[in-house]
C-alpha cells in the first residue's frame, strides 16, 4: 500500500515537474520584451524591420511610446512595466541620479558583445565611481554637421571665393550685397558658429589653461568683439534684416526662393533647397560649405557632436531574472550582421557596397523600407555604424556632396571636441540650458541694437553669474578635474568618418 502511495506520489511529482517545465518553456518561447521609446512618427511594431529582427534573432519585442518628458517621468517614477526605457542624454542625467535605472554591470559581464561593440567613451559616461553601469549608451561619432552653406552658382557667376578670415567674410558679404542685391546671409543664430569661430568662440564652456578652470564664453574677450561685429553686419544690412525674428520656415523660404545667398545648412537640408530652386528655374543651383573662420591666431574652432546622445536603461523596478534575457536581445542587435541588416537592409536589394565597404542605397526601395531602421538601434556598433550610416547620407548626391564637402574641408584643420561633451553634474543639468537661453536672448538684443553692448555688458554678466553662472563654472571646473578620462574622451574628437572617407584629421 505504502509502495503504491509512493509510486503515485512520484508519478504526480514527475507530472507536475514536466508540466511546470513545459509551461516555463512555452513562456520563454512566447516571451515579449517591452521597450518604452520616445514618440515616433510610425509604430515600429508595424514596421517590417521588426519582423526581420524577430525572425533573425528570435527575440519578440514590443514597443510602447511616451509622448514627452513628463509622461516619461511619470511612467518611470511609478514603476513602468517596460524591460528597457529609452532616454535622451538630458533626461538620463535628470532621472538616473533619482534612482530610475538598475545597475547592469554584473549582467553585462555575461554579454561581452555589448561592451565590445559600443565605444569605450560611452561606458566611461555610464559608469559611476563605484563601477555601477546605469545603461546602454549610444555614442555619437565626431561628425561635423555643417557650416554656412552658399550658392555655388552665384559664387561662380560673380567670382566670389570662400573666405577664411573675418575680414574676408565681411568683404564677401559687402560684395554679395553690392553686386547681387540679394540678402548675403540669412539665419537666426545668436551665436553663428562660422563667424564666432573667427573670434575664438566655440562651446559655451571651455577649459582655460591660464586659470586652470572651465570658463564661460562670456569670459572670452572675443565674445564682445563677435557681438559688436554681428551688430555692425546687422546695421549695414549685410545680414538678413529679419535675423532676430526669423524662424526655420522663413529661412527655408528665403534660401529656396533665391532671396538669400548663404545660411547655416546641413546635408539633410540642402536637398529640399536644391529641388525647389531647380524647379523654379535656377537649374545650376547647388551648395557648398564655408567652414568656421580662422581666428586671430589662425585657428578654426570647428565644433563636433561626439557625446552620448541617448541611453537605454533597465528600469530600477525590473526583475533581476528578466535582465539577462533583455540584454541578450540587446547583444543580438549589436551583432555586426544584424546591425547592417536593420540599418541598411539587404545587400543587393536595398543597397550596394563599393570596394571600400561604403554603401550606396538603392532608391526608392531604401527610402520606402529602411527609413526607420536606425530607430531599432540600442547602442551603436562602433565598427559598423560609420559605414552603414553612409547609406543614409548617400540617399541623394546633394546630401552626400554637402556632407563630404563640409567634413573633408573641416577635417584639414582639425575638430575641437568639447571638454564637457560627456559631462554630468547637478549644476550642469540645472543651469546649462537655461543660461544658454538667457545668453542667446541677450545676444539677439545686441545684434538687433535694442540694447547697447558697452553699457549693458557688465550688468548682463552679473545677471548671468547670479542666475547660476558661477555655480555652473564652479561645477564644471570640479567635474573637469575629477573626470580626466571623460574630459579626454570629449576632447579626442574621435571620428571614424576620417577613415571611411580616407581623409586625414589634423
Amino acid at each position: 500500500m505504502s509502495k503504491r502511495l509512493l509510486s503515485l506520489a512520484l508519478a504526480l511529482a514527475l507530472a507536475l515537474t514536466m508540466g511546470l517545465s513545459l509551461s516555463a518553456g512555452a513562456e520563454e518561447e512566447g516571451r515579449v520584451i517591452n521597450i518604452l521609446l520616445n514618440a515616433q512618427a510610425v509604430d515600429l511594431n508595424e514596421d517590417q524591420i521588426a519582423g526581420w529582427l524577430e525572425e533573425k534573432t528570435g527575440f519578440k519585442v514590443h514597443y510602447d511610446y511616451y509622448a514627452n518628458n513628463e509622461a516619461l517621468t511619470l511612467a518611470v517614477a511609478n514603476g513602468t512595466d517596460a524591460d528597457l526605457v529609452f532616454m535622451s542624454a538630458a533626461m538620463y542625467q535628470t532621472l538616473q541620479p533619482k534612482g530610475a535605472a538598475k545597475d547592469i554591470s554584473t549582467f553585462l559581464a555575461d554579454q561581452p558583445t555589448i561592451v565590445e561593440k559600443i565605444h569605450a567613451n560611452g561606458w566611461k559616461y555610464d559608469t559611476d565611481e563605484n563601477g555601477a553601469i546605469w545603461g546602454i549608451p549610444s555614442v555619437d561619432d565626431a561628425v561635423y554637421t555643417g557650416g554656412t552653406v552658399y550658392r555655388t552658382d552665384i559664387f561662380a557667376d560673380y567670382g566670389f571665393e570662400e573666405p577664411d578670415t573675418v575680414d574676408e567674410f565681411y568683404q564677401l558679404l559687402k560684395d554679395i550685397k553690392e553686386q547681387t542685391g540679394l540678402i548675403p546671409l540669412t539665419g537666426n543664430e545668436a551665436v553663428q558658429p562660422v563667424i564666432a569661430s573667427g573670434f575664438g568662440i566655440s562651446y559655451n564652456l571651455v577649459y582655460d589653461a591660464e586659470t586652470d578652470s572651465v570658463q564661460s564664453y562670456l569670459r572670452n574677450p572675443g565674445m564682445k568683439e563677435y557681438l559688436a561685429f554681428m551688430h555692425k553686419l546687422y546695421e549695414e544690412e549685410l545680414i538678413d534684416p529679419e535675423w532676430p525674428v526669423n524662424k526655420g520656415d522663413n529661412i527655408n523660404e528665403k534660401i529656396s526662393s533665391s532671396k538669400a545667398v548663404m545660411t547655416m545648412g546641413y546635408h539633410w537640408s540642402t536637398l529640399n533647397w536644391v529641388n525647389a530652386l531647380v524647379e523654379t528655374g535656377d537649374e545650376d543651383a547647388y551648395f557648398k560649405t564655408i567652414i568656421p573662420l580662422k581666428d586671430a591666431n589662425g585657428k578654426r574652432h570647428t565644433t563636433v557632436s561626439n557625446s552620448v546622445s541617448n541611453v537605454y536603461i533597465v528600469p530600477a523596478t525590473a526583475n533581476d531574472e528578466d535582465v539577462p534575457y533583455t540584454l541578450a536581445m540587446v547583444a543580438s542587435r549589436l551583432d555586426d550582421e544584424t546591425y547592417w541588416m536593420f540599418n541598411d537592409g539587404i545587400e543587393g536589394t536595398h543597397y550596394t557596397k563599393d570596394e571600400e565597404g561604403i554603401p550606396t542605397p538603392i532608391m526608392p526601395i531604401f527610402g520606402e523600407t529602411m527609413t526607420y531602421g536606425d530607430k531599432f538601434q540600442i547602442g551603436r556598433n562602433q565598427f559598423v555604424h560609420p559605414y552603414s550610416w553612409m547609406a543614409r547620407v548617400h540617399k541623394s548626391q546633394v546630401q552626400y556632396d554637402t556632407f563630404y564637402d563640409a567634413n573633408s574641408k573641416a577635417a584639414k584643420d582639425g575638430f575641437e571636441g568639447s571638454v564637457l561633451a560627456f559631462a554630468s553634474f547637478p549644476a550642469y543639468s540645472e543651469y546649462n540650458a537655461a543660461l544658454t537661453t538667457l545668453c542667446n536672448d541677450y545676444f539677439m538684443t545686441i545684434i538687433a541694437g535694442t540694447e547697447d553692448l558697452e553699457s549693458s555688458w557688465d550688468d548682463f554678466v552679473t545677471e548671468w553669474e547670479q542666475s547660476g553662472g558661477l555655480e555652473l563654472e564652479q561645477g564644471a571646473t570640479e567635474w573637469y578635474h575629477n573626470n580626466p578620462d571623460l574630459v579626454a574622451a570629449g576632447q579626442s574628437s574621435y571620428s571614424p568618418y576620417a577613415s571611411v572617407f580616407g581623409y586625414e584629421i589634423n
Partner: protein
Amino acid sequence: MAQAVKTKKTSITYGLSTGEKAFGIVNFVILAILGLLMLFPFVNLIAKSLSSNTAITTGQVTFWPVDFQTGTYRFVLKQGQFWNSFRISIVVTLCGTFGALIMSCITAYPLSKKWLWGRKFFALIFVFTMLFSGGMVPSYILMRALNFVNTIWVLIIPALLGVYNMILLKNFFEEIPEAVEESAQLDGAGSLRTLFSIVLPMSLPALATIGLFYAVGFWDNYMTGLLYITTPSLRPLQTYLYQLVTEATNISAETMTAEDMELASLNTEAIRAATIMLACVPIMCVYPFLQKYFVKGMRVGSVKG
C-alpha cells in the same frame, strides 16, 4: 392676429434710429472682420494641405492652393496609425458623450430637487472638485492603481462627469415647472419614469448643448492620451496629431524624415495641415445638426425663476 404681428414687426424694423442703424452696420463689419480673422489660419491650412512642396517651401501659399495636389491627403489617409487613432477617438467620443450625459442627468436631477436631504452638502462636494484637483502625479498614481493606464477606459471614465456641465443641467431642471412633474406623478410615474419620460424630453436643448460640450471635450482631449497611453494602437487622434506636429519640427540628422516619407512632392508642413484638417472634420460635422438647439441651449441655466 397674424395681421397684428405683422404690423408690430414692421414698426420694429422701421423704428431704428439712424444712430442705431449705423451702430448695427459698424457692429456687423467689425464682427465680420473678426470672424474672417478667425477663419484665416484655417483657410491657410487648407491651402497648404493642397499645395506642392516647392510652393510651400518658397512661401508662395497664403489663402489659395499653389500647384494644386491632393497627394498629401492620400498620404495621410494611407497611414494605418491615422485610421487607428481615428477609430479610437470616435469610440471614445461616442461612448464618453453618451456616458457623460447619463452621469450628468442622474446627478443633476436629484440635486435639482429642493427637498433632497443634504442637497447643499452634496452640491458643495461636486463644486469642490471643480475648483481643486489632485494634480498630475496623484491622478497618475490613482489611474495606475485602478489599472486604467494603457487602456481605453482612462480616456473615458475620468471625464464622465463634468461638474460645470452638470450644474448647467441642474439649473435647467430647476426651471421646469414642478406642476408638470407633479401631474406625471399623479398619473403614477415614479422618479425614474418622470426623469426619462417627462424631464429629459423637455430638456433636449440643454442636453444637446452639454452633449456638444462633452463631445468636443472628448474629441479634442490630447493630454490624457499623452500621459496615460503608451501603446500606439490606443492613441487617440489628437495625441497622434500632437506627436506628428512636435516630431515634424524635430527632424534629426539621423532620421532625415523629410526626405524619407516619400516626400519627393510632399512637405511635412502640408502633412501636418492635412492631418489637422482631417481631424477637424468629424467634430465640425456635428455642429450643423445641433444648431437648432444651440441658441436655446446657450441660455441654459442663465435665468433662474
